[in-house]
C-alpha cells in the first residue's frame, strides 16, 4: 500500500543525486570503452636476443625466419651469450636463441644439431607460448630444409596436416571474450554498490527510524529499494549492449531477450546481496568495505580473467558460490555461442536460487525494531 509512495521517494532521491547516478553509469561504460583494447592475452612481439656463433648461410637463413615471424621481434643480435643474457636480465629480451658454432655443418652432415633457448618464464604463459612458437618455427625450418632437398631423405617421415577451426570466435578476438564480462562488471557496480550504500545512508541520517515507526511492511521497504537499481541496471546494460555493437561490432548470436532476462536476474542477485550487506552494516564505510571485499572475489573468480577449469578444486568450490561465474558463462554463451535458455538452464536455476536466497535473507534481516 505504501509501496507506491516509497518508490516515488526512492526515484526522486536517485534522480536528484544526478552526480552519483551519472558517475555510476558513466564509469562502467568508460571501462567498456577503453578496457577491451587493453585486455589481451595474445602473446606477440616476443623479444628475441640472438647469439649466432656460426655465421653460416643456414644460421642467417634461420635468423631471417625469426625476423619474419609474427610472434618474434629480433631485439638484438650478438656473438656473445653474456650480452644477450644481460638483455634478458634487463627485461629487454624475453628469449635467447643461441646458435652453436658448427650449426650448418652438423645439420647438413648429421641431420641434427642442438640450439640453446633461454626463456624468461616469470610470466609462465608467455614462457610456454614463446617456447612452443619457437619449437614450431625450428621444426618447420628443419622440415623445409629436408624437403628442399638440401639433404635429400629417402626415408618417408610421418606427416599430419593439422587444420584448426575456431568456432564462435573465428578471428580469435579476445575483446569478444571480455566484453560480456565487462558488461557484467557494470552490473555489479550498479546493482551491488549503490544498494549496499542506500539503506546505510538512511541509517546514518536517522531517516530510517522515521520509516520504522510507520506501518510500512518490510517487504515493501526492500522492494522499493530494489526496483530503482534494477531499472538503472537495465538501462546501463542496454547502453552496454549498444556500445558493444557500435564500437566493437559485437552483436549477440543468441537472443537479446535471453540476455535481458539474465541481466535482469543478475541485477536482482547483486541488489539483494547489496541490501543484505546494507542491513548488516552500521556505517557506509563498513558497507562499502564489505561489499568491496566480496566484489573483488566475485570478479577475480568469475572465470573472466583466468579459467575456472584450471583452478585447484577448493577454489573451484568457492567459485561455484559466486553468482558472477554463472553470469560470465551465460553472457559469453549467449553472445558468442548463441546459446538459448535451454542450454543455460543450470545457470538459470543457480542464479534464481541465489537471487531468492539473498533477497529473502535481506527481507528477513531487515529489522524494524531492536
Amino acid at each position, binding site marked *: 500500500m505504501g509501496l507506491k509512495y516509497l518508490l516515488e521517494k526512492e526515484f526522486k532521491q536517485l534522480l536528484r543525486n544526478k552526480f552519483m547516478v551519472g558517475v555510476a553509469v558513466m564509469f562502467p561504460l568508460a571501462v567498456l570503452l577503453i578496457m577491451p583494447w587493453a585486455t589481451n592475452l595474445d602473446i606477440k612481439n616476443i623479444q628475441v636476443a640472438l647469439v649466432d656463433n656460426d655465421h653460416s648461410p643456414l644460421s642467417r637463413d634461420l635468423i631471417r625466419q625469426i625476423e619474419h615471424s609474427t610472434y618474434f621481434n629480433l631485439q638484438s643480435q650478438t656473438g656473445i651469450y653474456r650480452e644477450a643474457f644481460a638483455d634478458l636480465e634487463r627485461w629487454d629480451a624475453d628469449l635467447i636463441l643461441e646458435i652453436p658454432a658448427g650449426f650448418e655443418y652438423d645439420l647438413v652432415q648429421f641431420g641434427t644439431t642442438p640450439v640453446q633457448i633461454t626463456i624468461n618464464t616469470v610470466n*609462465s604463459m608467455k614462457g610456454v607460448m614463446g617456447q612452443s612458437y619457437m619449437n614450431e618455427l625450428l621444426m618447420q625450418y628443419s622440415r623445409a630444409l629436408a624437403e628442399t632437398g638440401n639433404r635429400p631423405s629417402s626415408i618417408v617421415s610421418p606427416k599430419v596436416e593439422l587444420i584448426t577451426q575456431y568456432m564462435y570466435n573465428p578471428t580469435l578476438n579476445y575483446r569478444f571474450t571480455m566484453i560480456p564480462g565487462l558488461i557484467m562488471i557494470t552490473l555489479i557496480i550498479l546493482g551491488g554498490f549503490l544498494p549496499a550504500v542506500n539503506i546505510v545512508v538512511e541509517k546514518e541520517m536517522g531517516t530510517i527510524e522515521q520509516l520504522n515507526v510507520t506501518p510500512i511492511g518490510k517487504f515493501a521497504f526492500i522492494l522499493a529499494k530494489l526496483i530503482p537499481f534494477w531499472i538503472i541496471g537495465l538501462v546501463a546494460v542496454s547502453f552496454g549492449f549498444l556500445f558493444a555493437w557500435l564500437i566493437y561490432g559485437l552483436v549477440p548470436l543468441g537472443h537479446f531477450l535471453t540476455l535481458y532476462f539474465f541481466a535482469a536476474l543478475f541485477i536482482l542477485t547483486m541488489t539483494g546481496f547489496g541490501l543484505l550487506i546494507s542491513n548488516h552494516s552500521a556505517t557506509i564505510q563498513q558497507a562499502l568495505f564489505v561489499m568491496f571485499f566480496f566484489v573483488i572475489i566475485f570478479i577475480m573468480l568469475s572465470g573472466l580473467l583466468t579459467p575456472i577449469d584450471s583452478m585447484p578444486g577448493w577454489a573451484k568450490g568457492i567459485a561455484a558460490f559466486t553468482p558472477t561465474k554463472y553470469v560470465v558463462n551465460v553472457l559469453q554463451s549467449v553472445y558468442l555461442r548463441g546459446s538459448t535458455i535451454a542450454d543455460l538452464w543450470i545457470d538459470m536455476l543457480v542464479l534464481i536460487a541465489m537471487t531468492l536466497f539473498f533477497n529473502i535473507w535481506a527481507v528477513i534481516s531487515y529489522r524494524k525494531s531492536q
Partner: protein
Amino acid sequence: MREFWVFVRKEFYHILRDRRTMMILLIMPVVMIILFGFALTTEVRNVNIGVLASEPDHAVEQILNRLDASEYFTVKERLDSPDDIDRKFRGRELDMVIAFGDHFSEKVFDPEGAAMQLVVDATNASMAQSYTAYASAIVAQYQQDMQPGAGRKGIVPNVVLMYNPQMKSSYNFVPGIMGLTLMLICALMTSIAIVKEKETGTMEVLLVSPLRPIHIIIAKMIPYFTVSCVNLLTILLLSIFVLKVPVAGSMVALCVVSLIYIIIALSLGLLVSTLVDQQIIAMLFSSMLLMVPTILLCGMIFPVESMPEILQYFSHLLPPKWYIMAVRKLMIAGLPVSFIWKEIVILIVMAVLLITISLRKFNNRLE
C-alpha cells in the same frame, strides 16, 4: 607536537574500534593473496576433448593416448557426427573436438599427409589459442618420435627456463596481487575514511582546531600507513610460506620499493578524497580509476606489451605498473637492485608529485 600524537592516537582508535572495518583491512589481503595466488592461473588444465573418427585406427589411438596422458587434456568422449559439436560446446561439455581423416594410419606416411582437424570453442580466445598450441606440440612430438631413423631430427632445442622453471602462474600473479592489494587498502580505504569525516562534518571541527592541516592529514595517514605495513608483512609471509613464492632478490630493496608504493597509494587516496564529498562516489572513483586499471592495465594479468601503443603509454603513468615490474624483477627474478633503478626512480618521482599535488589540493579546499 604533543597535540599531534594525541591526534594520531585518536585516528588509531577510529580504526581499531570499528571491528568489522579492521577485520576487513587485515583479512582482505590474506584472503586475496591466498585465494588469488592459488586460483588465478592461466595454465591449461582439464581441457575436455571430443573425438570424431570414422573407424578404429592405431595412429589415432596413439595420438589420443598422448593427449590424454598430458596434464592438459582429457579425452572425454567419441562423437558420432560433426553435428553434435555445437550442442556439446554450448552445453559446456567439451572444449575442443578433434576430427581425424579416414585411413589415418596409412595416410600419415603419404606425401600429402593425414588430415587432422582441431575444432576449438574459441569463446575464450586466449585459452583457445593455448589449447591449439599445446595440442599441436603434442602432435608434433608424435611426428618426431615416429620419424624412422634416429638422429635425423633436425634442430633440437635445448631449453633453459629462467626464474620460474616450474612455470607456476603464481610467480607471475603474486607481484600483481601485491600491487592490487596495497592499492586497495591504501588508496580506497584512505579516501573513504577521509570523505567519511567530510560527510559527517567532523572534518570541519578538526580544521578549526589549532592543528595545522598538514598535521591533520599526516595524522590520518599514519594509521593507514601502519595497517599497510602490517599488510605488506602478511602478504610477504603468505607468499613465501603458503604460496611458496620465495623472495629471490634483496628483501630490503623489496620492502623499500613497497613502502614507496604505499606512500603513492596513500597520496592517491588523499587526492581522491579532496575531489569528492560522498563516500559512495569516493568508492566509485577509487574502484574505477584505481582498481580496474590496476587489474587490467598494469600487466597484472594482461601483458602490457600486448596492448595497443596508446594504452602502453597510458600504462606508463600508472604507479602499479612500475611497482609490479619492480617486484617481478626483485622478488621473482632475483635481479640485483641495479636492474630496477628505473622503476625506483619513477616511483619516487610519482610519490613526490602525488604528495605535493594532493597536499596542495587539500590546502586549497580550505580557503
